[in-house]
């Protein structure tokens, strides 16, 4: 039941390879309707410059049709998206990593909001950024916030094998193996389970 919550373009070739790798559900930025052996759902990634922009964008998105993720750029947006019920996940990237402090994680824990991280970010991070990433992800895990791992794949060759991804998470971020598995299976699947897709 492997699930990837962040695939950029779900072409037919990518879907074929995802089936081969054992994925059962994908959230894609762009996809075409068709019969495939995988559950596909749309993904909206919002990176608003201000809180007002986030509110305006959220109003326009129909509820229950797509996974809504917010990559906040300022503290106000980060706090708001943590308690807004229309937002499914909050994305921590290398650009907004400094916004994720103990207070942000406390808010996310209170409202049951999962943290989303991308493997593509992990691969391109330098040592300083990786250290920041490590500390924050471990803080989130200690606070029992569900962490979701997405690939950020735009081509089928960037889609990781789940076992390889679990190994990468355990070695790079000291994820317990069980948590690494959960971040690719039940945590992301519970996000898309209630969606119409």
């Amino acid at each position, binding site marked *: 039941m492997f699930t990837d919550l962040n695939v950029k373009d779900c072409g037919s070739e990518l879907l074929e*390879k995802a089936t*081969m*790798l054992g994925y059962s559900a994908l959230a894609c930025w762009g996809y075409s309707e068709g019969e495939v052996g995988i559950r596909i759902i749309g993904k909206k990634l919002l990176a608003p410059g201000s809180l007002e922009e986030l509110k305006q964008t959220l109003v326009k998105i129909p509820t229950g049709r797509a996974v809504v993720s917010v990559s906040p750029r300022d503290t106000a947006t980060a706090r708001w998206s943590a308690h807004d019920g229309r937002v499914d996940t909050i994305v921590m990237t290398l650009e907004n990593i400094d916004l994720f402090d103990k207070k942000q994680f406390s808010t996310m824990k209170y409202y049951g909001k999962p943290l989303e991280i991308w*493997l593509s970010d992990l*691969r391109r991070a330098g040592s300083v950024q990786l250290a920041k990433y490590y500390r924050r992800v471990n803080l989130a895990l200690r606070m029992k916030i569900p962490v979701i791992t997405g690939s950020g794949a735009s*081509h*089928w*060759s*960037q*889609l*990781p*094998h789940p*076992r*390889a*991804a679990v*190994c*990468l998470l*355990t*070695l*790079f971020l000291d994820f317990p193996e069980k948590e690494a598995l959960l971040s690719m299976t039940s945590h992301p699947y519970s996000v898309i389970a209630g969606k119409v897709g």
Partner: protein
Amino acid sequence: MVEEIATLLATLLIAQAALLATTVYYLGRVRKVLRVWKTLVEKERGKPVKPRKRYVVFALACSGNPSREMVEKHVENAFTAYYGRAALAKASPQLVFMDEKAGRGVYRVSHLYVKHLISLFTAPLEAEECKCLIIPLKTTGTLKKALKIMEKK
């Protein structure tokens, strides 16, 4: 009377065989536990752990035909970038066998670095208009078993 004795003998034989199989199985388990314990004690005492070889069987899903050198170079570069030169030297990953037509191969690596090697398979192999996905199939302790798995799948 004869039938009864034959049945009794057969039952005894089956029970004996079952007992023998169970003993062999549990002896194997005990041996494995003892080996792990010995490794832990040696590690605790600061003794160097004897590196054992592991064979990682993998498959390639490619758009194009990747050569053996391409795969070797990719793994070496990725290993150095992710874990450094010291880890590369200790792990000493070697592509011992590769079937370029079938797109399958076997990597040999130290048992302490199996996870390191598998984690590299998340990095896409992209070179000379050839894009590949590396899929880990199985990790074994002998090359014979690895080759068998490679041919079977």
